[in-house]
């Protein structure tokens, strides 16, 4: 196969975006002194999708994002953003990338309008493109008063300034790090609309968020990391299918002990069952059941003639908490050891 050389970096970006993943990270490792913040991480974000990037506090999400932006240099692994290595071509990448940081800091003496002017002017001077009409529409959609000075803005309003600048820029990729933590529910909805519009325009979004409902609504795929390591990644629908389902059943008090014993036997070491007494001589069992055991658990519950049975696929929150609990359980013995020293 013959590859024709692109005339300029912008064309290279366009070609790269059409031919491969917009973000392609393999075996990324980043150390700060002796502390390993990211350990052999893989991350792939397909073009034209919204990719959720999840993890508890301190998991390494922001560090990963800073490597993607070229703020941090990796210690090992391969990183490509829009087909380029951010360690050597960060300015080429950043021209076609919009970024909203978790803690938005802007120039306090400028007004919101002036800050937007600066962000647009610098992007244009770097060879990027910016849509003024889109900016006006976004200012209205986010109900932003751009005439106020930044120092008078709340956190949410500072985030709005950056979101307006990010969505108004004509970029291939949006990297959004906790972009809605300061927004009210109405503005969160507006943000969701903007993300959907961006994807409809062919752009790609990497969304780091703690608001799992938001990720569930917006994302096609998610990557969950913990302690700098990949925990799970893939299409959200597929992950839900593979994950444990939540089963709830209400049975009579007389059969409750038998049901508890049978559930324990069926689920074995994976047992995550809670038993909650209810009014009217009834007991409700809530269990998180691995996909391969759903059939068997439902059969034994039905045999107890329950008054109510519900089976729901795992939510993103269940997925996240499941990994978080496993991580915490794994860490506990080590904690105890260290603490005993």
């Amino acid at each position: 196969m013959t590859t024709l050389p692109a005339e300029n970096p912008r064309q290279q970006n366009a070609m790269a975006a059409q031919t491969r993943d917009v973000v392609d990270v393999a075996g990324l490792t980043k150390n700060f002194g002796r502390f390993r913040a990211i350990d052999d991480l893989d991350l792939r974000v397909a073009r034209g999708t919204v990719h959720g990037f999840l993890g508890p506090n301190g998991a390494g999400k922001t560090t990963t994002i800073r490597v993607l932006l070229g703020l941090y240099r990796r210690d090992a692994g391969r990183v490509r953003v829009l087909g380029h290595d951010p360690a050597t071509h960060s300015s080429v990448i950043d021209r076609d990338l919009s970024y909203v940081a978790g803690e938005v800091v802007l120039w306090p003496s400028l007004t919101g309008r002036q800050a937007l002017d600066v962000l647009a002017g610098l992007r244009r001077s770097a060879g990027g493109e910016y849509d003024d009409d889109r900016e006006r529409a976004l200012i209205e959609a986010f109900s932003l008063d751009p005439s106020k000075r930044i120092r008078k803005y709340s956190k949410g309003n500072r985030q709005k300034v950056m979101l307006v600048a990010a969505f108004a820029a004509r970029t291939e990729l949006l990297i959004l790090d906790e972009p809605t933590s300061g927004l009210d529910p109405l503005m969160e909805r507006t943000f969701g609309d903007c993300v959907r519009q961006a994807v409809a325009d062919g752009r790609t979004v990497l969304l780091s968020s703690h608001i799992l409902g938001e990720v569930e609504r917006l994302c096609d795929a998610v990557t969950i990391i913990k302690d700098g390591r990949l925990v799970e990644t893939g299409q959200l629908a597929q992950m839900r299918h593979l994950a444990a389902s939540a089963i709830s059943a209400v049975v009579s008090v007389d059969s409750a002990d038998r049901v508890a014993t049978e559930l324990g036997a069926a689920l074995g070491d994976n047992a995550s069952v809670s038993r909650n007494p209810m009014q009217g001589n009834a007991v409700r069992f809530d269990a998180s059941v691995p996909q391969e055991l759903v059939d068997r658990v439902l059969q034994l519950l039905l045999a107890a003639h329950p008054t109510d049975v519900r089976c729901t696929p795992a939510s993103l929150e269940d997925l996240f908490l499941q990994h978080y609990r496993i991580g915490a359980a794994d860490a506990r013995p080590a904690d105890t050891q260290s603490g005993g020293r």
Partner: protein
Amino acid sequence: MRVMSSRPRPAGRRIGPARVALRTHRRQILAWTLPLLGLLVIVGPSYASTYPQLNQRTHLIDSLSGNVATRLLYGPLPRPGTIGQLLTWEMGTYLVIVSSVFTLLLGVRFGRGAEESGAAELLQACGHSAAARLRGALAAVTVVAVGLGVGVAAVLLAESGLVEELTVRGALSLGLVTTCTGLFFGLAGLLAGALADSTGLARVLGFVVLAISFVLRAVANVHGVVALRWVSPLGWIDVVSPYTRNRWWTGAVFLAACVSVGGLVWLAGQGREYGSAVLHERAVSDDRLRVRSVVALTWHLERGRWLAWTVGVVAIGAFFGGMSGNLVTLLEGDSNTARLMREMTGEHRLDAAFFSFAGVLIGLLVGCYAVLTVLASGTEEGDGLLEDLLACGVRRRESLSARAVLAALGSLTMLLAAGAVCSLVTLSQLHGGAAGRGFSYVAGQWPAVLALTGLGVLCVGARRSLGVLAWVPVAGSAVLVLMGSVLHAPRWLQASAVFAHVPDYADGSVPSTGVVALLGCGVVCLLIGVVWRGRRDLMPE
């Protein structure tokens, strides 16, 4: 995973708002007070070693008293001119002005600054009411002002055993007036913070009070209006008159004035809603900002600071120009001072020695401006503002390069303006090439400032936290060039001071090897620093 072992805290330990304010600002407090007290330590013994006998100072005192510029800034020099009187006259003036600026800024930080940063909310969340926070701020300002006064008195008391003419009563009087002046401006800062809706506006209000104070004292000094010294807190030092009249009882009057201002602070704070203010800056604007480069943005953000520095540096240039006539006459008739000046500057001609000295002081100030401008790039990196720029496709090196360009060109224009004004004012005082000498010695410090700029860029380019090292060559050069000859430092060591390499261009001298080395050092360090910043991890907080 490692579990941190924690020592149990002592039960019942209490931390009040005043302690929080003092602890969170301890670096600023030390950064202002220690150099000030350090300077105070060396001034008294320096006078004593240069002018051990009273009759050796007669010519100096006559010359200094007859000059309008010195009279405006320092006031009349008390007779007969003991070491204590000289120290109060010169160092005392610096002491009250610098401590006023310091406590004013601190007062604003303790009041409005705490509300802006959210520290006040944090205290509220820990159960400290608005009244308790206000009491804490008042207490913190008082502790700083009293601490400064005690420090001044302690230094001078310690020296009273070494220098006979430094009396105990004089030391206590100067400590007292330092406390009164510092307390007044600290409280003024708190009051301005209660009235203004931002720290910026509060500082402006505070500095207006300081400027009025300065003008009132200057009028009192030049025209002899004694009553104005009572009205101006900067003139209180003349009323107390340490080492002359030692009127320590007037301190009670000044403390009463401070209590009144404290009462106003209390009244302004009572019932005030969190964050509310009477005076508002223009918070709304439809102005646009069409910038297309980081240099243009940096200039827009920094032009106010550049203008303030330029006005200050030019005023000092005018001051030196105004003093030139009398001081050169003084040097011609005072062999001690002339010898000291020649040793310090390495110049034989007395007018060259004087302008060389003036150039060093102005160069030192402009060097501080350049280093501050460059180090602001490290602050941008820590705050996360650099991320905003990089996310627009700006190259990693551009922010630091823009700061370096601003520092280099800003300092050049500052030195040219100060040199020109110094030269123009000198024309009314001296003839025969002195005006050109005034210009060339001031403007000739630019290679030194460029070298400091380059070293600053190198430090902050290598690592944000290393930025503080940029002050080492500034402080080291200042000590070596001003004190090197007195301390009998080796020649090569004195030559390492960046300010020590300005030839007498007005005499037809050409740039020396030192000048070329400074320019080379500045450019090379600047380039290395900028490239280094482009290659290392950027470290937001």
